[in-house]
């Protein structure tokens, strides 16, 4: 306690000559930033940089638990790329990512625009309800949906059978259609969360421009396409990237819904699920690290593509303007 308080009281209590005060003040000014950064840097070193280095070393080893290992060169990576289970996991994860991004984000934008209209009462209440599932942790989402998705007794099949008489109450959400079940459960959990991002982005849409477009007789679609969309693109592309990154790392929900298994015919196996299985159930941390690097590379490519695409669209728009200017 006293050692913590000491630095704050020291400069006031000791009173050396004026010249040396300014020198010591200078010194403290150059040391102080590093004092503030030290805990963060130390933690990053131990828990990010060392493991990152470790992931590189590990990926060239075959391990049997955390204590023993054998150097195998690049054969883990060759193993991963020719591993049919890895490709099954990749395909499942890709389907899930595509499904969640393409269903969830347009819906989230839709609800954000609905709630952003003037003259709607109870906006705060609606926003709170739609947002609330994000507060429910993935374990609890899995507990709830595990019961809701059951074949005959589950509420979802019963409700669907009530609405559509032809619906089969034995619909096997958790066996044959696990990816569909995952997409729906994730939609429930994160739609409102993404809606909040889009709501924030919609505040950047210039009102005057929208009014002017209306005056000029631009219809709803034209105003959306040429006024709203460009204004929300910076946040929008960020949300798309975040969604892709998050969806690509899906693991806990299928792991919990399938009670630790990978489902019928491995239909519920995801890439991170496979990483967990090899690393922590079979004990080969080396092979797991090679899978980890593969994920990192895929996500880096996605992030790079996103930058390239957004930069490309700006360039082409700029190019058009320049050409238009040249023609005049």
């Amino acid at each position, binding site marked *: 306690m006293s050692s913590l308080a000491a630095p704050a009281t020291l400069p006031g209590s000791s009173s050396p000559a004026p010249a040396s005060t300014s020198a010591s003040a200078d010194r403290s000014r150059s040391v102080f930033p590093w004092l503030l*950064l030290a805990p963060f840097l130390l933690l990053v070193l131990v828990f990010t940089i060392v493991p990152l280095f470790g992931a590189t070393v590990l990926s060239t080893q075959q391990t049997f638990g955390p204590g023993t290992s054998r150097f195998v060169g690049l054969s883990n990576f060759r193993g991963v790329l020719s591993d049919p289970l890895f490709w099954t996991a990749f395909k499942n994860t890709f389907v899930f990512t595509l499904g969640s991004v393409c269903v969830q984000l347009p819906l989230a934008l839709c609800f954000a625009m609905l709630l952003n209209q003037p003259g709607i009462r109870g906006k705060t209440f609606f926003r709170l309800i739609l947002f609330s599932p994000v507060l429910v942790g993935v374990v609890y989402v899995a507990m709830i949906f595990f019961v809701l998705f059951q074949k005959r007794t589950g509420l979802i099949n019963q*409700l669907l059978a009530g609405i559509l008489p032809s619906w089969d109450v034995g619909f096997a959400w958790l066996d044959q259609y696990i990816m569909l079940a995952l997409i729906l459960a994730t939609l429930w959990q994160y739609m409102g969360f993404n809606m909040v991002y889009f709501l924030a982005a919609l505040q950047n849409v210039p009102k005057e421009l929208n009014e002017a477009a209306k005056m000029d007789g631009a219809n709803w679609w034209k105003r959306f396409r040429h006024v709203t969309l460009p204004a929300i693109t910076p946040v929008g592309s960020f949300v798309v990237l975040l969604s892709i990154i998050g969806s690509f790392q899906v693991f806990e929900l299928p792991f919990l819904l399938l009670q630790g298994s990978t489902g019928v015919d491995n239909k519920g196996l995801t890439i991170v699920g496979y990483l967990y299985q090899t690393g922590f159930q079979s004990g080969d941390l080396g092979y797991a690290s090679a899978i980890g690097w593969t994920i990192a590379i895929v996500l880096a490519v996605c992030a790079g593509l996103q930058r390239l695409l957004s930069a490309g669209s700006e360039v082409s728009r700029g190019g058009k303007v320049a050409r238009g200017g040249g023609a005049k």
Partner: protein
Amino acid sequence: MKPRAIATYCIVVPACIVIALPLVWLLIASLKSSEDFFTSPFLPRGDGFLGIAWDRLTLDNFRNLLSKTGFARSLLASSLLASVTATLATLICAAAGYALARLHFRGKRGVTWLVLACLIIPGPLLLSPGFQVLYHLSLLDTFMGLILPAIGPAFGVYLFRQATVSSVPPELLEAARMDGCSEFRIFWRVALPLLQPMIAAFMLITFLSVWNNFINPQVVLQSAEKFPLAVMIAQLKDVYSQDYGLMMAGTMLSILPVAGLFMLLQRDFVAGLTSGAVKG
């Protein structure tokens, strides 16, 4: 009312019902006996008010949860882990973020790049080697093994850097320096109070993410008496696989405290979540 507003309500109200349905169902399920669990999708029918057998609802599931399982101990573990991690992470990230935003020193660019680089490293990549690091530091199966890796998130440093840039004016810091304030006092007494909205938001976000985290305690902890709620509730499914009422009561009680807290503080929470996106 305008037709456009009516059309909006026609879409938004059903959507809210669909979103709220699983949570309403959960609340009712936790109050039902095992006999009623599958015979009625929602409240059991009977002769009571509104044609519902209110007297068939029971608190037995909650009693069993507290007496048969380690719920109370796990609740304590979760509260401890979440509050300690949230407090330390906020202090460490606020200090680092402030330094990167407002102080001048050699190597600042390098550290800023490091923060941005850490942001793009996917978590699963560090899962196995992180486990090895904890093994070598003898931190497996300890709370420290969960707290230490979680209190220096680059994401938090980035958020506090952005917050400092937008809400701590450099002139104010310069004025305090002129008055002979020590650098520590300037940070503690001038900058931190101005960062208070971000501090609230970030503490909430961190608390929630630790409370809901499953994979880290699942990998790091081995002894059942240390399990936080997320791991303990997930295991109810293996141990009491037929007692759905008990599982739903456990789920209900695990969500309720944090969800309640966040409903109360939702303004701060939402502002904090979106600030990084909007300003970045």
